[in-house]
């Protein structure tokens, strides 16, 4: 067991390292430089030079890289030129919106997708299956940010149950959750559809396995066969998709936060782009990539718990 863990950790570290090189190379080394981009074409050379020094851009590349990476561990990711505050603080401040939003959306997606998928598999080619399959088919095709617009149109503009966007802050937790509810639903719909589909086909696959017939031959009840034998053995693909979805949710947040005007990290990435603030983009991009890699690692670890056969391998 510790052997597997160390090897996986090593490979995660390697992936993270390469990803950070990719981000650094595209954002810091390729044409132009942060200072010139930030100031625009009309800037005078001495202003650019001054800003370069302020941003540390006059240092050699490898020093800049290590300053950035070491900073990532201490939370010191440099100063944002456009916001005038530290990047680390900026990200932390935006995370308190994005992470709860993604978590809420994930809970909604799992809460809808898994039961629907299981019901569809249990009643294959009957009414529940057709309803769930239809939902999955249509739900996957609907863009989350558009669904958000529709929700605003219905629940804010017409019914006036929710405000059309904005975030009141966590000082008033109930209002904060209420502000996150519509965007979370918008994010969750396509993910619930995908999860329905994956759950359905994973459970159907297991239901075709020989040991299901053994369980039937024991005279077990249908419910027990379904949950204890079929769903239990379908968890690996289901968890894989849930893991993938967490990263998609975070990425989808870029769009949905814009629609709902939420001060989250996705909106930060977008705003940084319009401000041409490469220092912010670099760290936000790395944060997203790191999150995806980390969640994939956790999913990998969960396989060991879900599938006893994998524990035995080297």
């Amino acid at each position, binding site marked *: 067991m510790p052997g597997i863990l160390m090897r996986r950790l090593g490979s995660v570290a390697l992936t993270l390292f390469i990803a950070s090189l990719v981000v650094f190379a595209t954002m810091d080394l390729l044409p132009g430089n942060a200072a010139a981009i930030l100031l625009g074409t009309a800037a005078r050379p001495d202003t650019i030079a001054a800003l370069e020094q302020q941003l540390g851009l006059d240092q050699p590349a490898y020093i800049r890289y290590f300053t950035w990476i070491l900073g990532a561990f201490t939370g010191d990711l440099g100063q944002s030129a456009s916001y005038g505050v530290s990047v680390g603080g900026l990200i932390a401040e935006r995370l308190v919106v994005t992470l709860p939003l993604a978590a809420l959306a994930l809970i909604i997606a799992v809460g809808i997708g898994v039961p629907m998928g299981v019901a569809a598999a249990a009643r294959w080619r009957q009414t529940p299956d057709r309803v769930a399959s239809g939902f999955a088919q249509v739900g996957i095709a609907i863009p989350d940010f558009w669904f958000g617009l*529709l929700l605003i149109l219905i629940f804010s503009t017409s019914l006036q149950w929710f405000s059309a966007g904005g975030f009141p802050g966590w000082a008033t937790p109930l209002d904060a959750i209420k502000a996150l509810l519509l965007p979370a639903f918008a994010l969750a719909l396509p993910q619930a559809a995908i999860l329905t589909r994956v759950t359905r086909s994973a459970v159907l696959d297991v239901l075709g396995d020989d040991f299901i017939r053994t369980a039937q031959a024991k005279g077990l009840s249908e419910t027990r066969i379904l949950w204890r034998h079929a769903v239990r053995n379908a968890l690996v693909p289901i968890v894989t998709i849930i893991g993938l979805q967490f990263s998609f949710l975070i990425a989808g947040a*870029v769009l949905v936060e814009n629609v709902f005007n939420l001060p989250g990290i996705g909106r930060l990435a977008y705003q940084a782009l319009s401000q041409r603030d490469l220092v912010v983009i670099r760290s936000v991009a790395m944060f997203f990539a790191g999150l995806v890699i980390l969640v994939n690692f956790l999913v990998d670890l969960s396989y060991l718990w879900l599938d006893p056969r994998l524990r035995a391998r080297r």
Partner: protein
Amino acid sequence: MSDSTETTRSFSFGPHARLYIGSIITACVVGLAVLSLFWTPSPPSKMRIALKLKPPLEAGLAGTDALGRDLFSQLMVGAWNSLSIAVAAILIGLIFGVALGTAAAARRGAVEEIIMRFADVVFAFPAIISAIMIAALIGSGATTAILAIGLFNIPVFIRVSRGLAQRVWANDFCLAAQAAGKGSFRITTDHVIPNIAGGIAIQATIQIGLAILVEAGLSFLGLSLAPPSPSWGRMLSDAQTYLSQAPWMAVAPGVAVAIAVLGFNLLGDGLRDKFDPRTQGRS
């Protein structure tokens, strides 16, 4: 699982309903997109202030926007733009992905390890994030969208083609070819590629649908095609301002995206049902 009497019922559309419906929708979307190259009900960027913010059917099939431009004409041109970006991106993903995926299946050990690590790294950047990074470098535009979506699809096709290729490699005919003295490159071109082509085509169909979805998001943020060329995503972003006055502006482009994606997904699933008996009705 349950009483046999319950489960012997048959589908009203027959076993290939998804294939038929998907083909029809896809044909309509592609047809309208191609038609827009030659003809649209009115020039898509012609402003007619007198006709601004008219609801559907009062002026044109889908109404007009704040500048009096015909929305349906914009939707048709948007279909072409969206489809061409999606197809170009998927081609990038498919060519690099299949080349690397089949190589990984053919060459075990270090080569496979490097390719899969590469896939992991690329996969860690969702298309929107790479689009933001690319846009920071070279600015927004169709190239940015194609690159971002294409890049994200490389690991997708690496994983799919590697999985399919491994199944082919497990067959004795590959062993027989090896025993006869064929190298792994020739086995890949002679045996593996022909046997996985169908599966790859099916996956590509589904990925085109997803690419349309992502492209809509990118153009919503202004990262894709620059104005005045219309795109579904930007039409939605324009609609945000007039949400209460002209809700149809927000509805029509979204429906267009959903229908196009639905069409490609149904087509892909239908093809899978037809050609891969293992997943019959299960995917």
